[in-house]
């Protein structure tokens, strides 16, 4: 699973223009929520660190043939590209529809920060949704296992009754077995009784969980936690 960073997202500012990177950083610092920043010169960027950022801002771009854009677009992460002209922005929209093209007009930094902030909120929402899906899948697996155990309980109980009954029948024959053998048969019987107790506890736990569900009480994540909660 890809490493995620829910506490503080990282914005990659990719530019060959130092002033552009400084201006973006300075404008964003005035916001209440400031992400982590990686300012990287487009001269050293080789397009490989795709997991290291949540949002990429590229600029200023003079035409749609910027060398970093194809690699950034394939990451599936939001990319905002600040274009120096309307023609460049339009060309970029036509060539790479996933890239958000923004024209470098007066006051574009406000729009950039607003758009970037929304992108980061979306990224965070997607990450939370993925985590929720992951948790739901885990719970689903556990529920399947639980259902299987419930279904198998009767079969197990039947087998156990047979073991218990036969061991008791053997113990009812005095003198048929030597003392060590009787001792072993008693162990079999006692262990069978213990297993029966465990199955009984399992049944009562299932009943209590049903009652709790009917009363609208959310059951704990694990049967052990449930057993602790009910004392």
């Amino acid at each position, binding site marked *: 699973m890809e490493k995620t960073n829910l506490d*503080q997202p*990282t914005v*990659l500012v990719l530019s060959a223009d*130092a002033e552009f*990177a*400084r201006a973006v*950083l300075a404008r964003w610092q005035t916001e209440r929520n400031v992400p*982590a*920043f*990686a*300012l*990287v*010169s487009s*001269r*050293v*960027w*080789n397009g*490989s*660190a795709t*997991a*290291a950022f949540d949002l990429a801002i590229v600029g200023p771009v003079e035409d749609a043939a910027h060398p970093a854009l194809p690699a950034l677009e394939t990451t599936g992460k939001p990319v905002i590209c600040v274009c120096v002209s309307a023609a460049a922005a339009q060309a970029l929209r036509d060539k790479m529809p996933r890239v958000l093209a923004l024209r470098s007009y007066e006051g574009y930094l406000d729009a950039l920060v607003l758009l970037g902030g929304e992108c980061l909120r979306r990224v965070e929402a997607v990450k939370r949704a993925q985590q929720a899906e992951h948790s739901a899948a885990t719970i689903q697996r556990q529920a399947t296992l639980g259902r299987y155990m419930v279904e198998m309980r009767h079969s197990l109980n039947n087998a156990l009754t047979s073991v218990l009954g036969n061991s008791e029948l053997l113990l009812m024959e005095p003198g048929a077995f030597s003392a060590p053998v009787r001792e072993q048969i008693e162990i079999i019987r006692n262990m069978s009784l213990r297993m029966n107790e465990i199955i009984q506890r399992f049944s009562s736990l299932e009943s209590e969980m049903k009652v709790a569900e009917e009363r609208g009480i959310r059951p704990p994540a694990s049967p052990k936690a449930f057993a602790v909660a009910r004392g």
Partner: protein
Amino acid sequence: MTQEKTTDWQASEQSAVGRLARFFPGATPVRIPVSVSAGGREKAESEATVIEFGTPREALFACQLPLEFAEKVRLRNADGSFDTDAWVVALHYHNGQAAVAARFVHEPAHWVVKL
């Protein structure tokens, strides 16, 4: 100059320098104490730091100096065997920490990370 074991990579990945190193796939963990000073200023402040990652052309280190993107810096070790100018090519700000990647103007003598 000593080169750290690669297992230290994961431990330092959460630091600002470690995070910045993710943008430099060829970066190797190193531990080289140096002083860094802003080269382009009249009264250059300097700071003692440690180069934590290196590539054949760049050094990555934490720095509290107010360095800026594309600024020239000077890196020098205690005995002067490593003394070079470099351009700031990447900066990472994370949880109040700043990490810098500086690309050497010329290939420095005695640099441990080779192609």
